């Protein structure tokens, strides 16, 4: 009865509104909760707020980034997926993660940011700033515009270059700008970087995390390397069609060395500035090196002069990310229901060098015959190598493996992380990925290394939070107990760090053969400085293979691998009916005491992956309305 009265009342009020809504000045009223442009820019604080918003829109591929866009993770839950799943770095514990037809679009957000930054650049001269303030703000505008066009160019190739704010005067055709060539687009990115370098300060007095001259050099180093790679490696997977004929995708091979040299120059400026260096470059032993490497990502702000540009995460529950809740091993979930999702792959673990054989990847050898290409599973009659502890098989592997990956049987957050796929019975028959137990000589052994699912972290197919590759993940995770809720992680993200600059430099030198200014030697020293920081004591020569291996292990899980495969046109050869691989530790009860053996195998419940070459570019949305030339094969 009461409800009915309320409803009637509301109905009457609404009727009142509806009939009265069209008063004379209604459309001219100013909103009381919003500012217009003039008011905002009239106040220095307003400009600052506007600037912070632009930084927030930058396409920094941080913890929340996935599949060339951000939309998917934002509606679901940040970090539920990450780029590593699309590469050969990792496998998801539950899903076969596939590229979403070329990737999520970043077209609309990109051009929104371009418009927003163009508005700012236009208004700077009218703000009445001091000369130095105006200079640094112009530099920031150029940096943001360069970063945005870099984000667009690596997805779409050549794009329309909107150099000043567009004004709509009733003729929509005037707003349509055709695509520039891919080469022109990259050249624009580099020239905007130059503008930023010329105008930005060395540091910000208040220590704010805003773009500096050095961040602009770093962006230029990265962008030039991308453009150079496309020019040099286009022929590995050429495309055809109108977009190619008009140069909207692809760069002539003759341009490669110009871009490589731009990368070398920008990187050298940072390397010669004396302002940056590696965090703890000379560890006394590999254990120390592994911990140094791990800490670098947990506390980037305390990482000496290695970071060049950091994106901060501050407010838990609001704009925090979810790496810790999704990616901790099952045993350290601290009550959260969905951990253990990020499982580094065996191919990735294989990649690391061993201290005993410098300069070469050291695939995990599991059998006496040393065959590392047999993925056919356990066979009773094979002679497996035996280990007392499950982690002994990784002895002498590069410290960064230990700092990136939770290996079976190692400690993490005070727990021994148990990753075991089954056991071999005394009669030689194996129980693999079957929840079972056996008693031998009065002792009971369990398939997964412990009786209860909360006590182990691997392989049980009934639990989607168990690693199925044999490895769990820890790089960039907090060493503190997690808060089992959404968006609680506030680890900061290093968008540019010194190590990447060294690797960009070394790759550009190795690819181009550039030899002036002693570049060959400097490049060799660069990769060996990274290796020494990782506990290596023997230097290796500069080759493109050693640079790429070093890049993959040093920058692992920093969302670089995906773009490396794109720009170097290696995706379609890497993923061609390619299975994912696991290392399965088994407890072998044929010996007493029991020992660990390992089986190299295809990851359970996965399918093979193939990369379609058209996905080297993303499709351009809305060509029916914007009239742009579409990318090949879309």
């Amino acid at each position, binding site marked *: 009865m009461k409800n009915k009265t309320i409803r009637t009342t509301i109905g009457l009020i609404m009727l009142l509104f509806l009939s009265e809504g069209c008063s004379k000045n209604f459309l001219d009223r100013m909103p009381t909760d919003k500012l217009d442009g003039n008011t905002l820019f009239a106040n220095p604080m307003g400009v600052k707020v506007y600037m912070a918003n632009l930084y927030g829109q930058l396409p920094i591929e941080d913890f929340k980034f996935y599949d060339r866009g951000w939309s998917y993770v934002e509606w679901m839950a940040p970090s539920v997926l990450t780029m590593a799943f699309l590469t050969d770095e990792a496998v998801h514990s539950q899903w076969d993660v596939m590229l979403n037809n070329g990737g999520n679009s970043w077209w609309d957000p990109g051009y929104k940011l371009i418009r927003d930054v163009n508005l700012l650049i236009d208004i700077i001269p009218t703000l009445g700033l001091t000369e130095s303030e105006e200079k640094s703000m112009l530099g920031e505008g150029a940096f943001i515009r360069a970063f945005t066009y870099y984000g667009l160019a690596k997805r779409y190739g050549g794009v329309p270059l909107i150099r000043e704010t567009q004004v709509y005067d009733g003729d929509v055709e005037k707003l349509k700008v055709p695509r520039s060539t891919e080469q022109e687009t990259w050249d624009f990115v580099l020239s905007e970087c130059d503008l930023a370098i010329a105008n930005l300060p060395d540091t910000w007095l208040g220590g704010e995390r805003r773009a500096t001259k050095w961040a602009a050099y770093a962006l230029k180093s990265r962008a030039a390397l991308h453009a150079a790679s496309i020019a040099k490696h286009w022929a590995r997977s*050429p*495309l*055809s069609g109108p977009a190619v004929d008009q140069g909207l995708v692809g760069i002539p091979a003759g341009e490669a060395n110009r871009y490589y040299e731009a990368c070398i120059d920008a990187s050298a400026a940072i390397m010669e500035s004396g302002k940056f260096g590696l965090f703890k470059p000379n560890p006394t032993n590999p254990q120390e090196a592994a911990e140094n490497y791990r800490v670098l990502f947990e506390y980037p702000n305390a990482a000496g002069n290695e970071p060049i540009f950091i994106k901060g995460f501050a407010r838990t529950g609001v704009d925090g990310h979810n790496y810790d809740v999704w990616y901790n091993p099952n045993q350290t979930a601290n009550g959260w229901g969905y951990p253990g999702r990020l499982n580094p792959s065996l191919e990735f673990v294989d990649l690391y060098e061993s201290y005993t054989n410098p300069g070469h990847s050291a695939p995990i050898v599991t059998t006496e015959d040393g065959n590392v290409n*047999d993925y*056919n599973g356990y066979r009773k009659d094979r002679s497996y190598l035996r280990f007392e502890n499950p982690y002994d098989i990784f002895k002498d592997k590069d410290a960064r493996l230990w700092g990136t990956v939770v290996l079976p049987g190692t400690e993490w957050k005070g727990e021994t992380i148990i990753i075991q796929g089954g056991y071999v019975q005394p009669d030689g028959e194996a129980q693999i990925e079957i929840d079972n137990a056996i008693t031998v000589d009065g002792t009971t052994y369990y398939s997964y290394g412990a009786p209860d699912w909360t006590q182990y972290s691997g392989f049980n197919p009934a639990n989607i939070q168990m690693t199925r590759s044999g490895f769990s993940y820890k790089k960039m995770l907090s060493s503190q107990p997690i808060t089992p809720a959404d968006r609680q992680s506030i680890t900061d993200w290093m968008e540019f760090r010194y190590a990447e600059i060294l690797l960009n430099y070394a790759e550009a030198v190795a690819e181009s053969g550039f030899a002036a200014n002693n570049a060959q030697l400097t490049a060799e020293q660069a990769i060996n400085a990274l290796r020494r920081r990782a506990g290596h004591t023997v230097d290796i020569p500069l080759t493109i293979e050693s640079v790429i291996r070093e890049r993959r292990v040093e920058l692992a899980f920093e969302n670089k691998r995906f773009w490396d495969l794109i720009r170097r046109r290696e995706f379609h050869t890497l993923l*061609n*009916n390619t299975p994912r691989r696991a290392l399965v530790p088994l407890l072998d009860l044929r010996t007493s005491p029991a020992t660990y053996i390992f089986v190299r195998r295809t990851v359970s419940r996965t399918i093979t992956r*193939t990369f*379609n*070459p058209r996905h080297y570019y993303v499709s351009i949305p809305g060509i*029916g309305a914007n009239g742009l030339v579409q990318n090949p*094969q879309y």
Partner: protein
Amino acid sequence: MMVSVVTFMSCELDNYDMPNAVLFGSIVDAESGELLEQDIINGTQIEYIELGFDDPATQYLVVKNDGTFRNNLVFAGTYTVRPVRGNFFPIDKKEIQVKGDTQIDFQVQPYIRVKNVSIAKAGDKVIATFNLEQTGPNNVRKIGLYAHPEAAVGEPLRKVAVEKVLNEPTDPDATFSLEIDLPSHPTLAPGHPYFFRVGALYDAPEAKLNYAKAVRLAL
């Protein structure tokens, strides 16, 4: 109530005509007159565009492994048609009238002819030997022997692949040999029949592999 009235009002019967024509044909080696072997997955496609519209959509047909294609649901009209991204030198588009059953065969020059193929089981190996006759000056990127339970076997559809990277021009008299060691590939179960096919990839933009016909072998 008002909402449902509005919703129901918007439904009308679709009274457009059905597609009333058939487009079919084949891709033929102009020299030998034989069908040119293809892949279904990521293989050659037939690109066709219906003329008479301002902004016509480009449509695609998949080519079957034997080199034929067919679409039984096409609207009669004028089209431009051409095969694209194939295993032969690109050819110009053709303008055709599609009406009733319309056949169009494309005479092409394959990048490579895979000849004198022998695939046989010997002991616990499957051994393939063949010659390659390439029709252009570029490198041959790789050769491969592929196995799968389905007859549509090829580089994209295989249980087992044994490939060799060449990256060099080939001599038509040279005999190439590839072998699958059965014990190290337990996915090929003894006692079951499988299809085997050899292919070679020419170094040209967006080139697809050239093949010989698949061979069925019981292991």
